[in-house]
């Protein structure tokens, strides 16, 4: 049983999706229960697999049908992918619990189909993290993308067109990736990552133009998928028009898994040597990442729609991670990887809080934040924790990822990136304090701007309308994880991430 844990991570949500399509007549509550059960199972298996990895202190290889690689398909779970699996399964489970009210609100009919897509999307993401085969990654990428199109298009009105654009761009990204895989297949005759990596490390292939084209296409495809500036245009609309649950599920995870794929491609399939010596992109990519961080944040500052603002923040965060991965220092790599976890949690935290606020107030613009501290104190505190982490206030996890990123950039003397990180943090501070001011004190024009030192003007009496418990519990857990992850940075880095630091940087 223990040996089968790696495959069960993926099989359980896959079968849950299958059954979910059939259980319509049993009612929405049954579908909800089934989804939760499936995700609990998947999370359990992820934890078991991670335990296996830690026990043996080496990667766990699972051969499907016991076919040996490179012929057979292989799942590889090492320290890094183990943690990412737990992150995905955990976030998905929290979102699923959170969805009790919102999913029904957004999908009054056929909730079971919605949950089936939900489960399928999680399957795809988990599969991408666990797979040890480049073609399988493509298929799973498309599985998650297709189900995300379905989920996003469950939003209302403008969601359709936004999703359509996403579909077109997403397909271009996936096809680039596939084409790149084709080039590498021509040169190596293999699709297994470990096998290909061994072949690609031969000196004559390091110089090969075909390999270079393959690498370029793969990275370009992944960049489109992870919405790296300036390839991000599809994302803000697609995510901000979606239903609350959909946004909570897709926004934190999809891009983060794509970043993970980028890291895998750069350092596991290819090598630090190849990425930083054979080709000389890294200075340009760092500029791109710095631009992404700064422009993403500034664009977020310009938004009035809460979720659109958050998606632009994700664009900036993608810049952080890309920069961290490309500055070619160990601290930078640790920062980028740690930020996958940190950003997954903190964006989930924010999207959940904003989702709850939208659920209660029915508004999606900044005005929804008015007097939130009086109306929904717990949600407001959770929002503050998420915001603090984005800004990088210690001891939240966002501070420590920024710490590693800046340290790495300083070691590499990439001062542009250091400056970009700091500017982005400051802009983030402005973004959130503007919101918190509204949240704390309400709009200026409603509570009166009278000149005398308002001892008299009490804030407008507001009814307390805290989010329902089914939303609060996952939100509190997420917010707590943001802080706990921050406090246990050392453990996370030592036990999981430092194993994956590629050789040669």
């Amino acid at each position, binding site marked *: 049983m223990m040996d089968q844990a790696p495959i069960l991570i993926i099989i359980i949500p896959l079968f849950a999706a299958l059954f979910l399509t059939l259980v319509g007549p049993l009612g929405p509550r049954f579908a909800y229960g089934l989804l939760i059960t499936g995700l609990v199972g998947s999370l359990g298996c992820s934890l078991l697999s991670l335990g296996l990895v830690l026990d043996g202190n080496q990667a766990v290889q699972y051969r499907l049908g016991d076919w040996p690689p490179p012929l057979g398909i292989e799942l590889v779970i090492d320290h890094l992918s183990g943690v990412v699996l737990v992150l995905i399964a955990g976030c998905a489970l929290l979102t699923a619990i959170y969805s009790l009210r919102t999913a029904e609100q957004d999908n009054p009919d056929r909730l079971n189909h919605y949950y089936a897509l939900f489960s399928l999307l999680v399957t795809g993401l988990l599969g991408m993290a666990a797979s040890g085969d480049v073609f399988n990654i493509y298929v799973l990428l498309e599985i998650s993308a297709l189900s995300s199109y379905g989920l996003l298009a469950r939003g209302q009105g403008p969601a359709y067109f936004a999703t359509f654009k996403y579909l077109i761009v997403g397909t271009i990204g996936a096809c680039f990736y596939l084409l790149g895989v084709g080039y590498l297949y021509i040169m190596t005759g293999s699709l297994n990552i470990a096998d290909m990596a061994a072949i690609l490390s031969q000196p004559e292939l390091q110089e090969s133009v075909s390999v270079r084209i393959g690498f370029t296409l793969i990275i370009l495809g992944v960049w489109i998928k992870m919405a790296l500036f300036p390839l991000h245009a599809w994302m803000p609309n697609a995510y901000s028009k979606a239903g609350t649950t959909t946004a909570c599920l897709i926004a934190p995870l999809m891009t983060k898994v794509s970043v993970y794929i980028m890291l895998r491609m750069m350092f596991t399939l290819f090598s630090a040597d190849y990425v930083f010596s054979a080709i000389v992109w890294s200075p340009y990519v760092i500029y791109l990442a710095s631009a992404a961080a700064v422009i993403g944040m500034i664009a977020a500052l310009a938004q009035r729609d809460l979720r659109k603002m958050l998606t632009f923040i994700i664009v900036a965060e993608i810049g952080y991670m890309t920069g961290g991965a490309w500055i070619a220092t160990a601290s930078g790599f640790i920062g980028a990887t740690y930020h996958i976890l940190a950003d997954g949690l903190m964006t989930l935290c924010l999207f959940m809080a904003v989702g709850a606020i939208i659920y209660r107030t029915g508004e999606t613009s900044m005005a929804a934040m008015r007097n939130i501290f009086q109306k929904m104190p717990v949600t407001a505190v959770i929002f503050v924790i998420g915001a*603090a982490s984005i*800004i*990088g*206030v*210690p*001891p939240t996890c966002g501070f*420590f990822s*920024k*710490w590693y990123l*800046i*340290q790495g950039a*300083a*070691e590499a003397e990439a001062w542009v990136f*250091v400056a970009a990180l*700091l500017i982005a*943090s*400051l802009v983030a*501070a*402005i973004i959130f*304090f503007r919101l918190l*001011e509204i949240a*704390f*004190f309400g709009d*200026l024009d409603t*509570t*009166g*701007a*009278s*000149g005398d*030192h*308002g*001892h008299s*003007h*009490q*804030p407008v009496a507001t009814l307390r309308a805290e989010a329902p418990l089914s939303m609060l519990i996952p939100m509190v857990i997420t917010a707590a994880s943001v802080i706990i992850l*921050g*406090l*246990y*940075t*050392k453990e996370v*880095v*030592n036990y999981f991430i430092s194993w994956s630091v590629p050789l040669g940087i």
Partner: protein
Amino acid sequence: MYSPSFYQIAPVIAVCASLAAVPLIALSGSRPNLREFWTFLAAGTKFAMVFSLAGYVLAGNVVEVDLIRVLPELSISFRVDSFGIVFALVSSFLWIVAATYTIGYMRGLDEHAQTRFFVCFALSLCAAIGVAFSGNLLTMYIFYEMLSLSTYPLVAHHQDLEGRAGARKYLVFLLGGSVGLVLPALIILFALAGTLDFAYNIQSGIVPEGTGPTMVVILFFAFLFGFAKNGVMPMHAWLPGAMVAPTPVSALLHAVAVVKVGVFCTTRVMLYVFGIDLMADLNLGIITAYIVSFTIIMASIIALTKDNLKARLAYSTVSQLSYIILGVALLAPAAIQGGIIHIVNHAFAKITLFFCAGAIYVATHKKNISEMGGLGRVMPFTFGAFAVASLSMIGAPPVAGFITKWYILVGSLDAGQMAIILVLIASTMLNVGYFAPITYKAFFGKPPAGVSYEPGIKEAPLIMVVPIMVAATISVFIGIFPGFMMQFVQMVIP
């Protein structure tokens, strides 16, 4: 004397006492008396802990507590040494005094959102003690940020345009300084030195030998200006803006907690991170002394022009804070002692002054100095305390401020800095210039034309006058018996 294990827990309790009080205060919002009881309980616990630690430190011990290791080689840890205990003693004691006064002020004016006010108050005290007991720069940075964030609602308390503009400016300067300057400096220092723990003596810092002088200078100024709470020009602009806050906030936070945290961080970094040897080698000390001398003089001149009492006090604060940095920057033992003791002296004197400003406002609703003529005859206790505290600011014996001036003067003679002596003299003259008229007018002046005091005006409520008198008395007391605090300060010098 308790067992050593007690002293391991005491710093944690001292920091967390007010943190633990936060939910209690928040939950008992509808019952003001219970709420205020929690505040006093936390304040009392905090002071008791700090006081017992003070005795232990005086016996030559240093308490080190490692809380949690967040990064390899880097932990959140407390270290209680004589320098930290000076600041902790002052702020934990003044919390009790200020809490008493605050209750009188808030109830006297029937302020809104009192629960939020007391919650943030407690949080900021937790942060202030946290800074005092920090064992390394990371811990200090964490509590420094916590203080910025928890005082933000206090500054914006009135929620009107002015309050929010002041609060915005407050955050922009403080977060801009800490995130934009301190954080990168912190990380670069960590990359260079491999540690952020403070050194154990003030001679040699933790900056490794062989670091390029340019880098050291950049780091040094990043810290000096990054800790914007210290009010060194040009990073002082938030301070007058933040004076829109209710007077107890100005008093405690802008005379004690916030600005003193800024100065404490700056001096802590100067002495325990860079060390006086390195600063002397690169002439950093004397450059800093001139920078802050400019602040001392400029702020005093601006203070002269202000008619709003709190604004005048605010610029006086900017000027006085730089005395502390000036003392340390002179790098002579006597001057360093003078600088550190000024943390104490200024705290007691300035809190008295702000308390008086608040008492005047509660009793008469007057803010401007020009309207206060003759008021001293109606409110003799308040203005008496005001006179004593302004003597301390000026540096006249026997009030506490004299001790500071004396030590810094001796120190600058030791350091051979005649120019600094001139600065001190000029600043004393300016201090007289902006403080003496207030007292004089209050006691001997006449009310301005067209202003007549209603017959009902009398001394502020007892709950406000008592803290004022306590703070003023202690100010005099320190001036006459400086020994108690000085013994801690002397332990800083090896």
